[in-house]
């Protein structure tokens, strides 16, 4: 099981790096799909079958199709052009900031003292227990989510419309 985790983690990290360092946005998007599949595999290892399915359907399916659609709509054939003025400061500053973020995150993770893990409660499967929780304890957030999606739909249509009258 740990071997599978290491393989999937390696795939996720390599493809994540490719997403960041590919010059062409289309290739970045395709590598990001592979990345999402690897992360979905890790969700399966962590006994989150429902979330893994949602990850593949929503992220690798819907969201990435939207990305590819926009990349092709904007017709960005040539790779990222050279900047008009030097961006070395931006690159160096960005990497330094990222390293600081990593150090901060690692420090935060090291501070945590975890209580011992529990044994799995018997009974419900993953999807069934999610559904039970979703429609009892988390009913209000679930309903608010639908409003959020409605707002996003209206916002996207209004923004992408060519002329506002």
């Amino acid at each position, binding site marked *: 099981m740990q071997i599978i985790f290491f393989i999937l983690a390696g795939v996720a990290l390599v493809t994540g790096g490719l997403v960041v360092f590919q010059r062409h946005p289309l290739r970045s998007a395709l590598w990001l799909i592979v990345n999402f599949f690897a992360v979905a595999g890790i969700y399966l290892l962590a006994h989150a079958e429902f979330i893994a399915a949602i990850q593949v359907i929503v992220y690798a399916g819907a969201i990435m199709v939207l990305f590819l659609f926009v990349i092709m709509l904007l017709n960005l054939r040539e790779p990222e052009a050279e900047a008009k003025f030097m961006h070395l400061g931006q690159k160096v500053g960005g*990497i330094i900031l990222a390293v600081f973020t990593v150090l901060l995150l690692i420090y935060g993770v090291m501070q945590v003292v975890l209580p011992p*893990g529990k044994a799995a409660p018997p009974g419900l499967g*993953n999807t069934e227990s999610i559904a039970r929780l979703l429609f009892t304890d988390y009913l209000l957030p679930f309903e608010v989510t639908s409003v959020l999606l409605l707002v996003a739909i209206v916002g996207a*249509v209004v923004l992408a419309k060519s002329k506002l009258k």
Partner: protein
Amino acid sequence: MVVPVSYYLALSVALFALGVIGVLIRRNVLVILMCIEMMLNAVNLAFIGFADYFKAVDGQMFVFFVMTVAAAEVAVGLALIVAIFRNRATVYVDEFNILKW
């Protein structure tokens, strides 16, 4: 053999860091949006790792909501990119200076 929760956290931190690097050094706004997705994914991974560790489904609930927000964010973000592209014919963030006077 169960995967320890620290492995999930380490992978989560690494993916998040890659996303941060991408957001900070890339100029293409589409790639920046993809890197934001990758950071959200890294956070989801930490949630899933803890949900498995504590054997509680609440963590998976939060992943569910994060994914919804991510989908909404991508839809609005891409619409914004299309709108800006129509105005300025560029996808590079250093040329989006319409908010400057």
